[in-house]
C-alpha cells in the first residue's frame, strides 16, 4: 500500500498536492470543490490591505500551437475583504478537518499590523501561514511582496514578527527574482520559519500585440511587467528548489512550486527535495479535476518502484547534483539510430550538421536518405536524440568501459602536481592519451 501523506514543517496533509495561493483558492466555494476533487491542501489566496484589481490581468504564452506554455499575470492579492476571507477559512476548515489550509498573508512592514493579521489567521483554525514575499508587481511598489523577498534582512525581520507570536507553522514564500535564492531561504530559517515555498512568479512581459503594438495584457493602452508562471518556468523552479534543498545551512522542509501540471512534474520536485508541491496555472487551465491523475499516477509509480512512503524518495536525486568540475571527462556516449524506426525526416542530420558537430551522413537508399552516425566523430551531445520526433529511435549509448575517471578538478590538480601549465597543447596531449579527438 502506498501512503502519500506528508508533514511539511508541521502542516500535515493526506497527499502532497496543494493548490498555490492564487485565483483557484480565492473562495470557500472553490477550496471546498478542490478538496472534493482530492487536493490535499490549499494555500488561500493572499490576504492583504484593501486593493483593487484591473480588468485584463492575464496573458497567455503559447508555443507551437500549445496553449498556455506559460501564464503571465498582473493580479494582486485578494480583492475580497479580510473579514470575509477569515470567515470562509474558518468554515472550510470545519468541513475539511483532514486537509491542510494555509493562510497566505502580505501586509505592510509594521510589526503591529503583522501581529494583528497573524492572530486572526490563527483564530480560523488554519494549519499554517504562508508569508507572500514574492508578488513581483503592484504590491512591491507599496513596499510589500517582492520588495521584501529581495532583501534578506527585511525578509528575516518581518518573518520574526510573525514567528514570535505564531502558534502554527510558518512557511515563507520566496520570489525567484533574486540572484541567489539561498540567501532569502537562510533568512527565513534564521527567523525561525518552519519551511519555505518556492517559486513565486518571475518578472515578465509576455508579448506584444503586433497589430496594435500594445503590451499584453493591455489595460486601456497601458501595461507593464507581470509575473510569469506555468510549464515554462518549471526548469527554473526545479533548479531553485534544488539549490535551497542542498544548502547545508538551510535544511528545512520545502513546498515546491512552479510549472507543475502532472504527477511527473510533482515527482521531480519531490526527488529534488520538496515535501509538498503547489499548483496554480495547470488548475487555471484545466480545473481541479487534474488532481485525480496526479494522485493515481504518483501512487502507481511508487508501487511499481516498490516505494510505500514519500520519505523514501524525497531528495533522492539531490546527491547527484555536483559542480561541473566534479563530472567525469572520460565518460563517453554516442548516438545510435534504430533504422527500423527511422521515418527519414532528416531532422537529426540538419541539427547535427548546422547546430553541433557534423557527424551524421546522409546516404541515399531506396528513394530516401539513410542517416548514419559517424561514431568516431560523435561527441555525445544528445542533440540528435532530442530533436528526433520518433520515440526511442535515436538512443545514446555509453561506449567507455566505466573504469576510468578524470574530472576537471582532478586534471587541474594533476597538472599542478606535475608542475605543468594548463595550455591547449598540454590539454591536447591528455585528450590524445584517452582517444579523444576534438575537431
Amino acid at each position: 500500500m502506498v501512503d502519500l501523506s506528508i508533514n511539511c514543517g508541521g502542516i500535515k496533509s493526506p497527499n502532497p498536492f496543494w493548490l498555490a495561493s492564487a485565483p483557484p483558492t480565492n473562495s470557500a466555494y472553490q477550496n471546498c470543490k478542490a478538496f472534493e476533487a482530492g487536493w490535499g491542501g490549499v494555500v488561500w489566496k493572499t490576504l492583504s490591505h484593501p486593493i483593487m484589481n484591473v480588468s485584463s490581468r492575464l496573458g497567455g504564452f503559447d508555443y507551437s500551437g500549445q496553449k498556455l506554455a506559460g501564464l503571465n499575470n498582473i493580479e494582486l492579492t485578494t480583492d475580497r475583504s479580510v473579514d470575509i476571507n477569515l470567515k470562509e477559512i474558518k468554515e472550510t476548515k470545519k468541513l475539511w478537518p483532514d486537509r491542510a489550509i494555509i493562510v497566505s498573508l502580505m501586509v505592510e512592514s509594521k510589526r503591529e499590523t503583522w501581529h494583528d493579521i497573524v492572530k486572526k489567521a490563527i483564530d480560523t483554525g488554519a494549519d499554517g501561514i504562508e508569508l507572500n514575499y514574492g508578488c513581483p508587481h503592484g504590491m512591491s511598489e507599496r513596499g510589500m511582496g517582492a520588495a521584501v523577498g529581495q532583501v534578506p534582512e527585511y525578509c528575516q525581520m518581518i518573518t520574526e514578527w510573525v514567528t514570535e507570536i505564531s502558534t502554527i507553522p510558518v512557511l515563507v514564500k520566496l520570489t525567484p527574482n533574486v540572484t541567489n535564492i539561498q540567501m532569502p531561504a537562510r533568512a527565513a530559517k534564521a527567523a525561525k520559519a518552519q519551511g519555505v515555498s518556492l517559486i513565486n512568479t518571475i518578472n515578465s512581459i509576455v508579448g506584444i500585440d503586433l497589430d496594435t503594438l500594445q503590451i499584453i495584457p493591455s489595460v486601456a493602452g497601458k501595461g507593464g511587467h507581470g509575473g510569469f508562471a506555468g510549464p515554462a518556468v518549471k526548469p527554473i523552479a526545479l533548479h531553485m528548489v534544488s539549490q535551497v534543498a542542498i544548502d547545508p545551512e538551510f535544511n528545512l522542509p520545502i513546498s515546491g512550486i512552479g510549472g507543475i501540471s502532472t504527477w511527473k512534474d510533482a515527482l521531480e520536485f519531490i526527488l529534488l527535495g520538496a515535501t509538498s508541491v503547489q499548483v496554480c496555472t495547470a488548475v487555471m487551465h484545466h480545473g481541479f479535476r487534474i488532481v485525480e491523475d496526479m494522485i493515481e499516477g504518483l501512487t502507481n509509480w511508487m508501487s511499481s518502484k516498490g516505494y510505500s512512503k514519500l520519505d523514501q524518495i524525497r531528495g533522492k536525486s539531490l546527491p547527484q547534483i555536483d559542480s561541473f568540475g566534479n563530472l567525469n571527462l572520460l565518460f563517453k556516449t554516442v548516438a545510435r539510430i534504430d533504422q527500423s524506426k527511422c521515418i527519414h525526416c532528416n531532422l537529426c542530420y540538419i541539427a547535427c550538421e548546422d547546430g553541433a558537430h557534423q557527424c551524421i551522413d546522409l546516404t541515399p537508399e531506396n528513394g530516401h536518405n539513410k542517416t548514419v552516425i559517424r561514431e568516431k566523430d560523435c561527441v555525445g551531445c544528445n542533440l540528435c536524440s532530442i530533436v528526433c520526433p520518433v520515440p526511442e529511435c535515436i538512443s545514446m549509448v555509453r561506449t567507455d568501459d566505466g573504469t576510468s575517471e578524470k574530472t576537471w578538478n582532478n586534471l587541474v590538480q594533476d597538472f599542478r602536481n606535475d608542475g605543468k601549465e594548463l595550455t591547449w597543447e598540454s590539454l591536447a596531449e591528455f585528450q590524445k592519451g584517452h582517444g579523444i579527438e576534438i575537431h
Partner: protein
Amino acid sequence: MENIASKLTQEQYEKNFKELHPPFSYGAALAEASRCLYCYDSPCMKACPTHIDISQFIKKISTDNLLGSAKTILKSNWVALTCAKACPVAVLCEGACVLNEKGDKPIEIGRLQRYVIDNYFAKEMPPLFTKKPSNGKSVAIIGSGPAGLSCSAELALLGYNVTVFESSDIPGGLNTWGIAPYKMRKEDALKEVELVKTFGVNVKTGVNVGIDILFNDLYKAFDAVFLGIGLGESRALSVNGEELSGVVSALDFIEQVKTEEWSSVAVGKRVAIIGAGNTSIDAATEAKRLGAEEVMVIYRRSSQDMSAYNFEFDLAKKDGIIFHFLTAPKKIVGKNFVEGIECIRMEPGEPDSKGKRRAFPVPGTEFVIPVDMVIKAIGQEAQNEFIASIPGVKFVNGMVEIKPDTYQTGNPKVFAGGDCINGGKEVVNAAYDGKMAAHGINNFLNN
C-alpha cells in the same frame, strides 16, 4: 449449395480479415493523446452512451498513467475493449469531438481506448476496484452478452452473489459471436468475461434456462433476476424457396466465420444479402473476404432509408459489394439448392412519421438475379416464448417493457436490458443498460 467459391490460402484469409484499425504504438498513442484538448464536460463523453470520462482517460495516457486511465474507462463501461473496437465511433464519441468543428481530424478515441485496455489485459489485470463486503443477497443473470456482463460486474462490486447462466458453451454473447473478425477477434471478448470473473462472478456456460433449469427455479432461488437474453431467431423472408439449400441467416453465417476455420465456411460464388442494416454489411463484406466472386445487397427501400451507417456502407463499397436499392425479393428459385432470386422493382412512397419511406412494388417489373447463396439479414425475432413464460413481464412491439429509470419489468423481481429491451442496438447500449439495471436491482433489494 452448389457453386461454392474456391478456397483461398490461409495467408490470403488472414490478409482479408486483418484488423481495420490496427493498435497504436506507444509513441503514436502519446502523440494522439496530446492532441486532445482535455475538454471539460466534453461532448465526446456526452455522446458516449456509457458516458466514459473520455478527456480524463486520454489525459492519463499522456502522463503514462495507464492504470488510472483503465480505471476511468472501466468504471463506466465493463466491455470497453469490445466497445473500443466495435462501436460506431464516427456517429458517437469521435463524431462529437470538438476538433471536427475546428476543421481538424477528431481524436481517435476508439483506438486510444483500445490501447489502454489492451495494455491493462496484457498486464494481467492488476486490481483497480474494491468489492463491497458480501451482503448475502444473490442475483441470477441470464445471458453473458454485454448487458449481462455489465450487470454482473456492477452487482458483484456492490457485494452481491452473482451467477450468470449462459446457454452456449463459450460465454460473451454477441461480443464473442457477432462482431466481424476484421473489427475484433473472439479472444478479446473472452478477456472481458475473465475480468468480470475476477470480481467473483460465477459464469455457468452450457446452461439453457427453460430447458436445463426452469426459470421458476431460478426465480425462487435468487433475490432478483436480470434478463440479458438478446433476441432470437433471424426473421424469415416468408417467400417461396426459403427452405432451399444455400439460404442461411446472417447471424449463423457471421457466427460460423467467427468460430470455424475460414476455409471450412461454405460461401457461394454469387451471394445475395437481403436487407441493408449493419449486420447485412457485415455478412456482405465477410462473404466477399471469404472469396465470393460477386456479392450484392438487396434492399426494398432507397439508400437514404437503410439503417447501415455511412462508414459501413463505404466499407462495403470499397469491398466491391453491389447494392440493389428499391428491389424486393419475391421468391428464391432453384430445385434443391439456390439458383437465383426473383425480385421486383419498388417505388418509394411518402415518408412515415419516422421519416422512413415505405416502398411499393411496381407491377410487371419482376426479374431474376442468378445467385448461389442467399443470406437473410432483415432482423431478429424476439425470444417470444421464453418471455411469455415469465409471469408479469410485458412485451410491447417485440420488446420487453421496462421502467426507464430502474430497468424493472412488470415483474418486480425481474429486470432486463440490452437487445431484448431495445430490439437490437449497439454493444455500448447494452453495456449501459446492464450497469443501470444493476443499480435498479440494488435499489429494489435495499428498499
